[in-house]
């Protein structure tokens, strides 16, 4: 155990810092859930790619930087440090990219990875359906072979980036007589295919965040299958595994929020307004827990770099960061008092920062990517060995 950086790692950090400081947009971009923001974010990712910083953890042969996990953490720290834009291309970098690297044919790799790296093509994920949420195996959308194409019918929902993305990946039932996780196939679907309708879904604050995608006899080439027919579940599990193992929700995100929270606390106290006396302790706890999340991540990364695999303990992470994120935003809103409820743009909301939007975003944490209830089941059954039935 040696918790200091090597010179090489320090050099990597400096390199990233210099590039980011020189290139990061000076003004925040519009939300990537608006048409103009989506385009601006694509441009930013394109620039990242030109600098060689778009696909940091990808192998060099696929246009990445070949960074190891620790370097990836360092890069993320620097990325948050300069306040660089959110990653509109997240689904590609962390989920589909590695899946294609593992399951894709040479043609698929050549066809999809470069355009993913350059953000020419942005991907939506199509995991959920109206009746397949927590119960992810209950997929009902079908893809029936007809000549050289799958004919897709059904509906996906909660497709993040779905409103403006070019492509969608997901599982479809290619064997209509199958049930649960059998008979599913992982298919890559161009969203401009005739028969596909994309309907954005608004979050509770009225902002578009997801989309429903309807399939009405949409024909997609058989070649767009990733992995073997009927093996969609395994491919999808690998995808989810990449999410858990490779990307690890960046500790710097929460360290950044915790630090902003401490600053807000100091500022509010200094301004002499009302400060909930319980907040001193709560703010401190939030800061400590953001540290705990960081330390846990570094420990996990060390373990993975030593050849270990991440398994069910990813469920521990999900619960911890999602609930911490809410607590931090609640504390901040409490500090803001009456101004905390003002919508961005309200005259009185100057200097209020994006705590309200952040709170609304945080609220989704315990729900998406497998509800925290599902995660607790996983912990109990797979880590603690408690009986399923």
């Amino acid at each position, binding site marked *: 155990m040696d918790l200091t950086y090597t010179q090489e790692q320090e050099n990597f950090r400096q390199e990233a810092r210099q590039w980011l400081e020189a290139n990061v947009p000076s003004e925040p971009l519009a939300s990537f859930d608006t048409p103009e923001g989506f385009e601006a974010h694509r441009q930013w990712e394109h620039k990242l790619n030109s600098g060689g910083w778009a696909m940091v953890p990808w192998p060099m042969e696929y246009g990445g930087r070949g960074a190891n996990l620790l370097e990836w953490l360092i890069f993320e720290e620097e990325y948050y440090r300069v306040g660089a834009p959110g990653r509109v291309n997240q689904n590609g970098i962390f989920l589909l990219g590695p899946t294609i690297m593992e399951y894709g044919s040479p043609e698929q790799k050549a066809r999809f990875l470069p355009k993913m790296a350059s953000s020419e093509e942005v991907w939506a994920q199509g995991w*959920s359906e109206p*009746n397949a*949420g*927590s*119960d992810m195996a*209950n997929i009902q959308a079908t893809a029936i072979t007809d000549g050289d194409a799958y004919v897709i019918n059904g509906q996906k*929902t*909660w497709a993040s980036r779905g409103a403006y993305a070019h492509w969608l990946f997901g599982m479809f039932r290619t064997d209509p007589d199958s049930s649960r996780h059998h008979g599913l196939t992982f298919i890559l679907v161009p969203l401009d295919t005739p028969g596909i309708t994309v309907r954005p*879904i*608004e*979050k*509770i*604050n*009225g902002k578009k965040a*997801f989309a429903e995608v309807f399939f009405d006899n949409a024909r997609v080439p058989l070649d767009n299958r990733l992995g073997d027919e009927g093996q969609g579940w395994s491919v999808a599990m690998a995808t989810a595994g990449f999410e858990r193992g490779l990307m690890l929700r960046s500790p710097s995100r929460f360290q950044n929020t915790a630090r902003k929270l401490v600053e807000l606390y100091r500022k509010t106290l200094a301004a002499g307004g*009302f400060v*909930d*006396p*319980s*907040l001193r302790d709560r703010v401190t706890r939030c800061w400590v827990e953001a540290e705990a999340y960081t330390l846990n991540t570094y420990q996990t990364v060390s373990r993975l770099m030593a050849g270990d695999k991440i398994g069910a303990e990813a469920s521990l992470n999900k619960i911890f960061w999602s609930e911490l994120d809410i607590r931090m935003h609640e504390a901040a809103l*409490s500090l803001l*008092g*009456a*101004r*905390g*409820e*003002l*919508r961005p*743009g*309200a*005259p*009185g*909301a100057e200097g209020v920062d994006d705590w*309200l939007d952040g709170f609304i975003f945080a*609220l*989704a944490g*315990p*729900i*998406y990517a497998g*509800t*925290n*209830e599902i995660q*607790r089941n996983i912990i109990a059954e797979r880590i603690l060995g408690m009986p399923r039935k």
Partner: protein
Amino acid sequence: MEFNFSEDQQLLQQAVRDFLAGECTPAAVRELWETETGRSKAFWSQLAEIGVPGLLVPEDHGGLGMDERDMVLVLEEAGRAALAEPVISTAAVGVPLLVELGESGQTEFAKKWLGRVAGGEALLAVGYEQSPFVADAHVADLLLLPQGKDLHAVERGDISVTAQPSNDQSQRLFSVDWSPSEKTCVAQGTEGAALQAAAFDRGVLACAAEQLGVGQQLIDMAALYTSQRQQFGVAIGTFQAVKHRLANAKVQVEYARAVVYRAAHSAATGSAQRSADVSMAKVMAGEAALFATKEALQVHGAIGYTYEQDLHVWMKRAWSLDLAFGSGAWHRARLADAIIDGQGPANAFGYCAPGN
């Protein structure tokens, strides 16, 4: 010692509930959200017909002459229905403030406005020192505003307002620009401060009553949704994790209930413990409602996070009501001052330890 509401009070509550269930649907609330003022004159007239704005107006001024023990039930229903109209500003806080002004010498002034309010023709807005904003200032015909210890009454024509849009589209907040003058001053010094304090406490109580209704409604919606929504071949409401979340929320709401009703009694009877009692009500009901938002959202899953689903109409009420008339945190701090530093309010009813 009688904690039950009278039959009349229960009939009033039921009547308001039935009325709002028919008229104040989530669709109707959303329709109002899309309007500029977020308020409907037509709907207010209907509320006036069933007596809501004049509930606390004395009978000889054209009102129903009821007290906070009646009002608390109406407000609970307003919360349950996510009613967006200025019932708190006008009926629960503005009216009794006018009544007290009338009793302290402003007889003609009070009479004039109380009659118009009871008839549904005039709306009121009330400012208080704990907030930089005034709710419903844009539609109020008369604003009662603090200036130090003094209290001023300003008519619509004499103010200008700047909208401060809230996350809760039902909550309409404004910065108000106005000029205090001798002419606008209606109560001064100690008297003005006492009137302000009483008005503030009534606002606190009113929020608590709405929070009770909001909390209950969130639980009811979640219980209904989870009884129908199927995953893994069963209704998700059969899962213990889902049940226990909503059961915990129900415990909180039910343990806020009697605290809110007691606060209404304290306000109505002029108890010396009024301030502590309304603070307790807002702390308990506010936290119950906030807790219910979390549990209701979590058991709804992604659908509850969408604008299309109605859940957020109530979640936003819970959030904005927590901030109105002093946040729950502010009231906890006020209670700590009273209980720990002061002699504290006495324990409820007869109990006290030997030597006290």
